[in-house]
């Protein structure tokens, strides 16, 4: 391993160096993805210290298991890291208390209440504050559906709930957000 060649930011090369346990390559990958992974953790875990620990555990798991990772092209590192971080966050949330309490499923409305275009009106902090205002179960389903782009079947498989429960949780999350946005306005 040539330390001078670490200036090459090619992800494939960085991954190869990380497999050789190169601290410099690990630091480069860390600096490249720490922001996005930390934001992801903060979306799921409102407590900042817990989010930091989830971030730490995510990178630790990533570097320790990097020999089992196969580089498949641009974005594969980001996808794998996000998957690891998501699992770490869900594990932490489950440790605190059960994410979902068995409850009577409400009728699922496909046409969820829209709250208008908030992009121009709210900054990132306010969006994060809104997300954090949701209960854990609602917030998790909302994050998975809106920010991770999963469908209800995938969410159900990941969280161990039914599709309808996922839909119900998303519906309630939207209602809460709508109320909060209206109150803010």
């Amino acid at each position: 391993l040539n330390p001078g060649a670490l200036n090459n930011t090619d992800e494939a090369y960085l991954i190869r160096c990380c497999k050789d346990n190169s601290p410099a390559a690990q630091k480069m990958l860390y600096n490249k993805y720490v922001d996005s992974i930390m934001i992801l953790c903060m979306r799921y875990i409102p407590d900042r210290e817990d989010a930091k620990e989830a971030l730490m555990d995510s990178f630790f798991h990533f570097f320790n298991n990097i020999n089992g990772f196969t580089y498949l092209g641009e974005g594969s590192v980001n996808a794998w890291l996000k998957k690891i971080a998501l699992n770490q966050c869900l594990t932490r949330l489950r440790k605190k208390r059960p994410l979902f309490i068995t409850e009577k499923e409400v009728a699922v409305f496909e046409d969820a209440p829209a709250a208008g275009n908030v992009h121009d009106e709210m900054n990132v902090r306010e969006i994060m504050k809104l997300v954090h205002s949701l209960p854990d179960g609602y917030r998790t389903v909302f994050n998975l559906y809106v920010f991770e782009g999963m469908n209800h079947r995938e969410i159900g498989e990941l969280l161990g709930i039914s599709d309808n429960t996922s839909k119900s949780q998303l519906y309630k999350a939207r209602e809460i957000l709508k109320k909060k946005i209206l109150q803010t306005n």
Partner: protein
Amino acid sequence: MKSDFEQSMREGMKGASLNELMPEFDKQAEWNQLSGKLRPEKKRILMPIWSYAAGIVALILAGWFCTKHHTPEKTLVKNTPVQAPVPPPINEPQPTNQVPALVPHSVSAPVVKQTTVAANEPKIKRQGRIKTANQSIPIGDTGLLFSVHLQPGPTQLMITDSTIIFPAQSQPKTITAAVKKTRPHAVNVLDIDNEDRQFMITEAPVGTYANPFLAKLHSVITQDAIAGSDRYYPLQGAFKK
């Protein structure tokens, strides 16, 4: 189907920066912590000086303990099988050829056990063989046989260290043991003359000369000196080699 609200939120979060959300987040500090977890330093265990001294003292104590509790007597008892002593044959005289010829012997009486027998008028005979086994008591195991002929009576006879102590009526008599007479060995006149020669002829014991040259020299000198002597008689086997 995602609403515009959700798409707006997602796009709003895409452009989010960590500095805006969490300005106090220190990347370098977090990296240092992560790096420490990835490569934990191997802590060298430093033993204090007193631990070495304690180890030496423990070794000394262990050695002393083993030495004290591991005596040769115990080993002998453990490893050597105990053989029962074979009692000597009774009423059998020792072979006479055990006494070498022409060697004067002075044998004292053997120590015998204190024995008390009933006797009235004891008669003590010195003999090589016991003639009347019913009325005799053999004593000793070195070929010296005593035969005490007893007469029935109320008195008692005590035999101690070859001394028979009689009761009050009689005086104690001392018995001195003697070697049984052996047949005299035939001695050649030449042998008698050659007795002095044994001291003149010196043979180097085995292993005296490690150097073969010195051994050969000794052999030549000795043989020449003896061969030149007119008093040399080969009957003694001085030169067996």
